[in-house]
């Protein structure tokens, strides 16, 4: 067990402190009144207030932003995983015409800048009457999430021995039944990891989400720009909204914490 270096505790503590400090500052601001934010520099709220949070939870456009975001994120995660699973199995088990080229082409979509696609997506989804629905954003995010899901799941499927497939087929399992009854439970943790990644990238992306929505499906992160008014920025409200957008991510991390490291290696180490 030598995978450690001298002074590792200090390095770790300093680094974690560096990660947490800006987040602490955001949380700190969210409990302050705007007068306190602008006039004094205080390390913790001297007159703590919940007014900022209260405004968010009583204003419908704020919490509908949350629901919109969660809608397209969950939809996208579901779409990505269900499309990617059979493909991952095919890439892992079979050789077929153009398989390697197809795989690289899929991955190359992960490298396409969202800014390139913003305008064509706008045209495409307007033409299909999907503009300003969660479907538009969910489908648009498939561009980078499906390739990633295929990549991750392929690694996990490959770690399942081929003999299991063969035994199942000998036992008279049909392909769909084998897939659902045997393969999916075996790679459940891999599906969890892939879902985590799809959730993450769909949740944090904003450029496409904002381009493809206007009123009805506006994501929470875009709603935040409303805190800038003629009178300047409402810093307290902005900070409170920021804190609230961190919470879903933090919850997801907590649930999958044991898989995080493995997932980041995309199941292929």
């Amino acid at each position: 067990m030598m995978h450690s270096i001298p002074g590792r505790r200090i390095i770790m503590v300093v680094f974690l402190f560096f990660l947490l400090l800006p987040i602490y500052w955001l949380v700190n601001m969210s409990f302050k009144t705007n007068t306190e934010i602008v006039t004094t520099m205080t390390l913790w709220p001297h007159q703590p207030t919940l007014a900022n949070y209260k405004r968010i939870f009583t204003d419908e456009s704020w919490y509908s932003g949350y629901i919109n975001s969660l809608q397209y994120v969950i939809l996208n995660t579901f779409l990505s995983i269900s499309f990617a699973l059979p493909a991952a199995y095919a890439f892992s088990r079979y050789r077929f015409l153009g398989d390697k080229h197809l795989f690289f082409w899929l991955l190359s979509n992960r490298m396409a800048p969202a800014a390139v696609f913003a305008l064509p997506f706008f045209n495409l989804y307007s033409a299909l009457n999907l503009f300003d629905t969660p479907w538009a954003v969910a489908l648009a995010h498939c561009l980078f999430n499906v390739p990633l899901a295929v990549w991750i799941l392929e690694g996990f499927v490959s770690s399942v021995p081929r003999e299991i497939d063969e035994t199942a087929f000998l036992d008279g399992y049909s392909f769909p039944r084998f897939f659902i009854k045997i393969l999916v439970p075996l790679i459940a943790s891999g599906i969890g990891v892939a879902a985590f990644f799809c959730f993450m990238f769909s949740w944090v992306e904003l450029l496409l989400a904002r381009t493809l929505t206007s009123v009805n499906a506006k994501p929470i992160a875009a709603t935040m720009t409303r805190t800038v008014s003629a009178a300047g920025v409402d810093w307290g409200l902005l900070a409170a909204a920021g804190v609230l957008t961190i919470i879903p991510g933090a919850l997801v991390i907590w649930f999958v914490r044991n898989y995080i490291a493995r997932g980041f290696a995309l199941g292929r180490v």
Partner: protein
Amino acid sequence: MEKVVNQKAWFLVLPVFLIVAFSAVLPLMTVVNYSVQDTFGNNQFFWNGVGWFKELLDPSTDLGGRFLASLGRNLLFSAIILAIEVPLGIVVALSMPRHGWPVAVCLVILALPLLIPWNVVGTIWQIFGRPDIGLMGYVFNSLGFNYNYVSNDIDAWFTVILMDVWHWTSLVALLCYAGLKSIPDAYYQAAQIDGASRWAVFKAIQLPKMNRVLLIAVLLRFMDSFMIYTEPFVVTGGGPGNSTTFVSIELVKIALGQFDLGKAAALSLVYNLVILIVCWLFYTVMTNAGSERPPKEGVA
């Protein structure tokens, strides 16, 4: 593992192929279509051939000047953050606690910045860095540095880079940690018997074992830093002047701000091509550098 040749596998891949083609090929064709045309508005387009591409690659024109300048800035930015995040990520991964609850705590905190929406990351650093209300800006100014990312180029760059290091070093660290975890204890025991130094252990065991995950880390970090848009846009808005205007920001300005579709489309294509080429270069160089074993099937 031997793979069986089976053309029917295409049926399994077909859904993915269709959905990605729908969201990649169709829009890309639109882009190609725009890139060779010009418009006077009213949806009337006429053929412009390679005109936009010529203008784009000629630094003396307005478009070319802006594109090449932003491309240069973006390359510099990617180079700097890779030079900081990769070594730092390795060090952090090597500093992970060994077992017990500290591991879970470290993992959760490390992963936290990765799950914050990108514009909120921008907001966090805006609030943190402002000289009037931000802790960092306030501390720097109290220490006698005249720090203000809104008006000073160097300060703006410093803020954007620090923000990216804050946001993404964890990704490199977690990847490396996953790589380190896969090293069997027997390797370390053998090294101990040989009396190998820490540095030797790192160079001979840990680094080669991390080779694959490092490749993924470098590729992901390069792609994402080269496509960066939201975070610097929220913090600096591309300024002061144009000093932090990266390619994506320039592209959105041209496409959605000025509605110059032809120029924007030509820029998009060249931009996408640059990313593909650089990723391919990284991939080739890095897989050749540490190739005692051939890369696994199906990676590319």
